């Protein structure tokens, strides 16, 4: 079975490593992206990037940046799903993306009842949804739906904030009674959980939701459960933060990590409008991704699906993390990193092994050149 290709033709792994190392060495500004891999793969990718002065981003970071931006600008009450399941007596679902992105989370909340907290335990959980499609089921609990277009949700959240604090406001898209109803629903909760997809509401909208929950905590308890289409990108951002100080979108051109959420984004760099002239893309997960931005640059592919890669200068077949080899991933349910044993051990190398081998080949020469 072939495991490496140069310009589409099968090659020995050592030759492919030499060819890829030469491309990276000659590159004026390499980009290391994709990053659909496990913790050890991302560690290796960041290590290689630091060594060769690359720009780094995850292919799906657009899905998490609205959350990251709001979080670091204003902070947030963030709940762990497992705790919300036991404490939240009232759940507000904002937007239609939640049901698409996190159906398991909704099912977990609708199929259980709170059993912690003097004010919350024992009662059936109540739900409100502010979006287009009502919830499929609320289990034993009661659900009410407020029909709202996606572009009006942030305004309505603002109206609820104004209502809760007694400030004047206009009518808005859903009417004053619906706003008053939402405000009462949240204010009367023992512990409210607000579930939403930051990518649907944008960074400012996300900050509005965090602001609402912060306001609620003046008088009662409330927290948020932001959901994302890419938990893998969230894990990579956390790992980027503990490795380089920044949640990806970093450049190592001058050695130390530098961060710019716009200039160093994968979308900009891979479009060819950025500074990068070569892309190393890691795509080594068994489950399909949300799809990263299109790549207009010459590419080195480190992938568990070599058949799906077209036009790469060098391609390495690697195992899918958590499927062909044991792996550790970020898991949003726990808000932490969790091990996943392989389904069956494979002969294929890990993405980390290929990336480390490239870094070893480049280390001395790149250091000499700098």
């Amino acid at each position, binding site marked *: 079975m072939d495991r490496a290709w140069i310009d589409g033709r099968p090659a020995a792994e050592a030759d492919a490593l030499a060819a890829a190392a030469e491309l990276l060495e000659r590159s004026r500004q390499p980009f290391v992206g994709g990053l659909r891999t496990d913790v050890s793969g991302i560690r290796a990718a960041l290590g290689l990037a630091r060594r060769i*002065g690359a720009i780094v981003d995850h292919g799906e970071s657009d899905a998490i940046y609205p959350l990251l931006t709001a979080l670091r600008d204003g902070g947030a009450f963030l709940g762990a799903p497992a705790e919300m399941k036991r404490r939240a007596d009232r759940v507000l679902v904002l937007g239609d993306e939640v049901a698409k992105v996190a159906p398991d989370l909704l099912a977990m909340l609708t199929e259980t009842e709170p059993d912690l907290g003097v004010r919350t335990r024992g009662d059936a959980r109540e739900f409100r949804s502010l979006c287009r499609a009502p919830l499929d089921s609320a289990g034993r609990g009661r659900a009410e739906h407020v029909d709202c277009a996606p572009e009006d949700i*942030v*305004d309505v959240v603002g109206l609820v904030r104004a209502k809760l604090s007694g400030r*004047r406001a206009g009518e808005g898209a859903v009417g004053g009674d619906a706003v008053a109803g939402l405000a009462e629903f949240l204010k009367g909760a023992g512990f409210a959980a607000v579930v939403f997809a930051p990518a649907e509401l944008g960074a400012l909208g996300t*900050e509005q939701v965090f*602001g609402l929950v912060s306001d609620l905590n003046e008088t009662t308890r409330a927290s948020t459960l932001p959901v994302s289409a890419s938990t893998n990108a969230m894990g990579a951002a956390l790992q980027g933060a503990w490795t380089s100080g920044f949640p990806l979108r970093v450049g190592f051109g001058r050695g130390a990590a530098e961060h710019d959420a*716009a200039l160093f984004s994968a979308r900009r760099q891979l479009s060819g409008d950025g500074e990068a002239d070569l892309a190393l893309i890691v795509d080594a997960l068994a489950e399909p991704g949300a799809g990263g931005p299109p790549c207009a640059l010459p590419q080195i592919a480190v992938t568990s699906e070599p058949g799906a890669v077209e036009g790469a200068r060098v391609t390495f077949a690697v195992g899918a993390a958590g499927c062909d080899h044991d792996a550790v991933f970020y898991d949003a349910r726990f808000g932490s990193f969790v091990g996943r044993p392989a389904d069956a051990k494979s002969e294929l190398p890990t993405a980390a092994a290929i990336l480390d081998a490239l870094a070893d080949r480049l280390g001395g020469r790149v250091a000499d050149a*700098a």
Partner: protein
Amino acid sequence: MTGMTFLKTQEPEERLDLSALVPARLKGLSSAEIARIAIGTSRRGVVVGDVFAVSGDDPSVLRFAGGSPRFDRIGEAMAGGEITVEGDAGARLGRMLKAGRITVTGSAGMHAGSAMEGGVLRIGGDAGDFLGGPLAGETMGLKGGTIVVGGRAGERAGDRMRRGVICVAGEAGDGLGSRMIAGTIVVGRRAAGTPGRMMKRGTLILCGGAERFAPTFVDNGPADILILKVMASAFAQGEVGEVPFDGAPMRRLGGDTAVLGLGEIFLPL
């Protein structure tokens, strides 16, 4: 003594960090020392001499003859003096400017005038997103000084602005004055999206109106108030120059009541 000129000799292939080319840092350096200043942002180690031919001997007056959207961080934290860019500027133009004057004849990238504290920043063409705004995680955008833009401004101009004046002759992108804390923004043409989202205080004078307003802005009706005339006259006599309002009555909105709600937006009647 003549001002110092940085003549662009080639278009840069990478982004350049020009924050070292400010009067205080150049003072006392020989032309050979200036040519060796590192400005590259890749592992190639680009220096001033690779991109510019430098002439003149007075570092308090700097001129970039030829600009580029990759000329980043021009005039960063400058505390006095004058910089002129004949052409475009990249990201973070005049960031944290304390005093002095920066003039760009072309357009500027993102975060122009970011967290500026004083001085005057003039952009002849368009400004990118987050004009005067903070970088990620910073709590304040523009803290003082004056920014004048001849063209249009990108998204989120005046984000988290605390003090000072921004005047945009053209249109403003989505999210103008978002999270504003205080200060004044004047826009000549239409503002896109919902300006003033989550503004606590501050004043937006939108002479070309706006796409729409969040319902957490309350219409106070026509306002025939002296301060508009005083402001128009003070702007005309100061650094901002002529503004597209003259003290005639304007419609006043108060908001954003999702937060403190002490901001105000003025519109033509």
